[in-house]
């Protein structure tokens, strides 16, 4: 094979490898892109510090809470109230009830989603049970708190924000290091 062919084949093979890597790079790129733009309804996966935001009393935002366990997740999982009216800037606490009706311990992970997606950037969580995995012994229940506020900079076209949690069974990936730091277990 002549040298002219080899150099070209080398370059083209490099392109093939680069494009294969690019396919995988799309995964983190997608996450970063969604985090920066706030599209896709993904909220931040880390808590924000509670800044003393100015409360905007001139308007009220309706927050709707949806919670559902995934099909393979046997927990009962629901919000304490279905909807709440808040002023932007006010800090609120909302509790979610989780109950494990089965005989053995199960670890859950809640995954949040905000609709409309563009409002996700303006929904801040100071504390959330969704930041960590939640351990619950069989037959027990617990309250899982969420502390949040709506950014006063929320554009005026949004009057309702829906926060939805899907709870997944992640017992197989349980890391005992990070136990329920946010949930108060009661019962027993």
């Amino acid at each position, binding site marked *: *094979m*002549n040298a*002219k*062919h080899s150099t*070209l*084949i080398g370059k*083209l*093979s490099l*392109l*093939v*490898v680069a*494009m*294969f890597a*690019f*396919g*995988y790079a*799309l*995964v983190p790129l*997608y996450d970063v892109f969604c985090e920066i*733009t706030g*599209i*896709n*309804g993904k909220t931040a996966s880390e808590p924000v510090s509670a800044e003393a935001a100015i409360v905007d009393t001139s308007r009220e935002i309706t927050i709707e809470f949806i919670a559902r366990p*995934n099909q393979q997740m046997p927990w009962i999982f629901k919000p304490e109230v279905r909807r709440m009216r808040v002023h932007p800037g006010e800090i609120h606490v909302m509790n979610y009830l989780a109950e494990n009706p089965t005989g053995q311990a199960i670890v859950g*992970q809640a*995954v949040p989603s905000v*609709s409309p*997606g*563009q409002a996700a950037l303006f929904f801040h969580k100071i504390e959330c049970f969704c930041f960590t995995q939640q351990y619950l012994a069989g037959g027990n229940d617990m309250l899982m708190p969420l502390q949040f506020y709506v950014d006063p900079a929320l554009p005026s076209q949004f009057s309702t924000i829906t926060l939805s949690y*899907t709870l*997944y*069974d*992640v017992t*197989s*990936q349980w890391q005992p290091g990070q136990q329920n730091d946010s949930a108060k277990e009661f019962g027993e």
Partner: protein
Amino acid sequence: MSTVTTADHHDAHHDHKPTGIKRWLFTTNHKDIGSLYLLFALAMFFLGGAMAMVIRLELFQPGMQFVEPQFFNQMTTMHGLIMVFGAVMPAFTGLANWMIPMMIGAPDMALPRMNNWSFWILPFAFLILIISMFLPGGGPDFGWTFYAPLSTTYSNDSTALFVFAIHIMGISSIMGAINVIVTIVNMRAPGMTWMKLPLFVWTWLITAFLLIMVMPVLAGLVTMVLTDKYFATSFFDAAGGGDPVLFQHIFWFFGHPEVYIMILPAFGIISAIVPTFARKKLFGYASMVYATASIAILSFLVWAHHMFTTGMPVYATLFFMYTTMLIAVPTGVKVFNWVATMWRGAMTFEVPMMFALAFIVLFTIGGLSGVMLAIAPVDFQYHDTYFVVAHFHYVLVSGAVFSLVAAAYYWLPKWTGHMYDEKLGQLHFWCSVISVNLLFFPMHFVGLAGMPRRIPDYALQFADFNAFISVGGFLFGLSQLIFVWVLVKCIRGGEKAPAKPWEGAEGLEWEVPSPAPYHTFDTPPQVK
């Protein structure tokens, strides 16, 4: 005596080839490999077509008559996979193998051994895919787009075979594409400058780059599906922090350029046939080259038009809507150039020209329904309905497949040394062009009325249209048997074809005798 041996030796160099199966297994000759690709594609076309017949049989009447819903889903999935990866793509690769070296005055493809490999792994890929249908639980049934979580959480173990098969097909296409690029870049005859290249060569060069850019992304995607399913990764699983919508982004990043992989070489074929039978030079050669390149570049910026209903933000929707519509501009340039080429030409209407003309009309219909689908607000209504099915079958069947058939008729005299039977060819054309419209045109209407795709049963008001569509489908399937008849007849004999059977044809491939000798352009021609 010694002079005789030298003469023998010389002949041997030219015509010696192993006979029987060995000739085909070990061949590194571009013409042999081209024929293998074309025959394989034809076989897959009939296999995928048989599956389409099963689909149309079940949809002939509302209610479930012949197959189980899960088998129906396997049929739609396998039909798509086989037609895309088994029929259309290998057929274009076969044409590339046969024609590109002859068109640029090269003795063979640049990498003949790799060429042999890229063909011979292909039958194994499809064997694996077809075998998976006979395993317990059945074959892939998640649609050719294999969206997660259908292909991850809800699929059966045939998915592993599916992934393996796609990997092999991908490797085959990438090797083929590298071969095409190296051949075109390094092996052009002296004087064959870039802007003298036939458009079929140009479009294939650009297609090969598209293949190299997106087939690795597809390979990565199926690997992610495999690890999500079997190795506890969660690329597409929300429970582990993944996102099923990400699947669609990666898939369509591959998928949209893929549709141009299946249509750009078709543009090249039409750009060869129309000037021949209009007996005029192609109108706007340079603009054709630039239009092809712009379509290829734009194809990387439009993928999310398949995802308008996933809930994208308005500005992203607008971006993808406008870039998609922008593609209509270079595509329109091509259509106008073909029409301008025919303008005041001395036209004759042999079978290749008939298929090329049908391509121009019907592909444009498919293009227009594509523009309709690009309009985001109305796409919410059309999404996942038969309107989409109508759209992509117009561009792929009466587009890509018609161009392939046109190419076969156009170059058959060069390949076989015989003229095909013109009467039978015309019969094949008229049967095909009428039935293809009976088959796909009413799909627009049922789609607009709300009939969803990939569903084995439907509401009663769609019954008449579906019966009609199915009849069109059976007729189209039967019409293709005429094509096989023409091919067999032409390979076995027929009127002797001259080196240049078409009066208005231009290009190096017409300067070698018909049938093209086993080795052509051992000494490169001088292109003026």
